[in-house]
């Protein structure tokens, strides 16, 4: 670090710089260790890398949505519900099952509806938080419950008879994987190279300061939640394609995995810090663990949810340790 004519009163050594860089990018060594562990313990997990990545697409899009919210200093508990509700609502319109509404068979209208539903729910989330001043936790928790309930109220059976093109989007592994990677690339580039992206980091670092430097923070929050809603809806579309129908439990419980993926990927729980590449690493990590659990002969299907909870706890503990280490290094720099 440069000196400042004797006035600098914080100094950091090379070792501290290395430690800080390592802390900010801890996902990669962790991913490496997990890959080695899975390779040794459950080698059958890697029979199809494409299958692992394909399975990662819906959770990947949700991690992206959650990362965007977290970077801005907010969070969204309703992403899984938005994915599930928008997929179910659109499925009811498109499906030919006996209890479906069957209003149209056009996949294009289906694409438009699912995106519209997701964006509208995200927009309302944003307006309630930015304009009405509701706490993001309470607002998105309410929407989690409301839309999960609304989904169940609409349909308790799998929605079938969807237009082939509508399901093909998520059912074509390479297309789905490509779409997820493009989404990560676009969001990553937007965050790095646009004023909007830097404003997201500014908002997450200090909402008050962001407002003082002229950023329209209310508008920004609304846009962020709207994008989160759209990404969640696309995740719902991918989930639909993955199984070919809209299952009644679609999207449920995914918010916690998305949360874990983003946090393990180095996205700060308090906003303003983190990289989208790290979040992508978090997605791969979560999906590898998920695939390993599914392939493990010693872990039963009923135990997977519990292990997912342990992974979330581990992610939070990891984050907490990272924050403490970071603070300690910063404090040690003070002379």
């Amino acid at each position, binding site marked *: 670090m440069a000196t400042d004519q004797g006035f600098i009163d914080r100094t950091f050594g090379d070792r501290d710089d290395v430690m800080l860089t390592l802390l900010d990018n801890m996902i990669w060594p962790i991913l490496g260790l997990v890959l080695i562990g899975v390779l040794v313990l459950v080698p059958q997990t890697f029979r199809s890398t494409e299958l692992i990545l394909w399975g990662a697409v819906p959770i990947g899009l949700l991690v992206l949505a959650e990362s965007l919210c977290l970077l801005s200093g907010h969070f969204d508990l309703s992403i899984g519900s938005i994915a599930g509700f928008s997929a179910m609502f659109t499925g009811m319109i498109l499906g030919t099952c006996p209890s479906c509404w069957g209003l149209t068979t056009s996949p294009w209208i289906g694409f438009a509806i699912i995106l519209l539903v997701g964006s509208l729910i995200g927009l309302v989330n944003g307006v309630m938080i930015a304009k009405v001043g509701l706490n993001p936790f309470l607002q998105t928790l309410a929407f989690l419950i409301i839309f999960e309930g609304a989904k169940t109220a609409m349909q308790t059976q799998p929605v079938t008879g969807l237009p082939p093109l509508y399901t093909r989007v998520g059912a074509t592994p390479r297309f789905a994987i490509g779409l997820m990677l493009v989404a990560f690339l676009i969001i990553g580039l937007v965050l790095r190279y646009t004023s909007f992206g830097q404003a997201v980091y500014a908002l997450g670092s200090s909402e008050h300061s962001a407002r003082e430097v*002229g950023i329209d923070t209310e508008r920004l929050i609304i846009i962020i939640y709207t994008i989160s809603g759209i990404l969640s809806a696309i995740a719902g579309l991918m989930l639909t394609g993955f199984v070919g129908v809209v299952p009644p439990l679609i999207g449920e419980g995914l918010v916690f995995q998305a949360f874990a993926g983003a946090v393990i990927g180095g996205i700060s729980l308090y906003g303003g810090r983190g990289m989208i590449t790290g979040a992508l690493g978090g997605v791969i990590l979560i999906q590898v663990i998920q695939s390993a659990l599914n392939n493990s002969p010693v872990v039963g299907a009923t135990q997977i949810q519990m292990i997912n909870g342990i992974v979330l706890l581990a992610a939070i503990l990891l984050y907490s340790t990272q924050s403490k280490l970071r603070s300690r290094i910063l404090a040690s720099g003070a002379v």
Partner: protein
Amino acid sequence: MSVEEEGTLEQHPTESNTETAGTPKIRAENLTKQFGRIVAVEDVSLDIQSSEVFALVGDNGAGKSTLMNMLSGVHEPTKGQIYKDGQPMNFSNPSEARDNGIETVYQDLALMDDLDIATNIFMGQFPRTGFGPFQIIDWDETYERAEQIMMDQLGRDLDIKTEVEFLSGGQRQLVAIGRSLAFDPDVIILDEPTSALSVDATRLVQDTIDTLADQGITIVIVSHNIESVLKHADRIGVLYRGSIVDIKQPEETDLEELNELMTTGTLSSGRLDD
């Protein structure tokens, strides 16, 4: 001249403050600001000259912040007129003041700790490259210009890729001043620039203020730190209960006298005899 007479005269710049030749950089004429029935600033007039370091001091509630906020566009005056370079100005928000070359560095500095120095300096005004709707942030230009501001204008060798959370209090103040310089202002208003700073950091900020004044930038300091303004201001305006009660040059006053003016709005008879 008695304090009362002097104070009264200072309320009317055309009579009192025009001893300095030329059009003042900033002229406040009979500025009044009311919030409901509360009069925060009453009939304040003053001239601030180009390249001058003008300090506004006063006790809590004296009206310093309100006066500053009128100059910086946060508040519109209830009555009175602000002139810049002789032109009447009506700022309805800080952006309009900024467009007219007046920048304000607030006490809280409005910095984003997680972001680096250059990003903080150019937040909301990044240099861009590309065309039409496909313009993106030009990071090379951003870092180059941030380095120029820190090195050439502030004379400080700071790594502009350093995150602000790593910086000391004085350096944070410099970054906030650096951000104001990115708008190429000719007037910078500093709100309590040395508040809660160490001795070294205070010296760093004071030297920076001198450097900026040498570059022809007019500096208005709003401060509690009388010792500091005595050393670095060209003139000191004392506010008491919303009015300017005196404007002093540092060499003709001292800490005790300014404190008395700030707390009572007047000077004891012994002082007057002096």
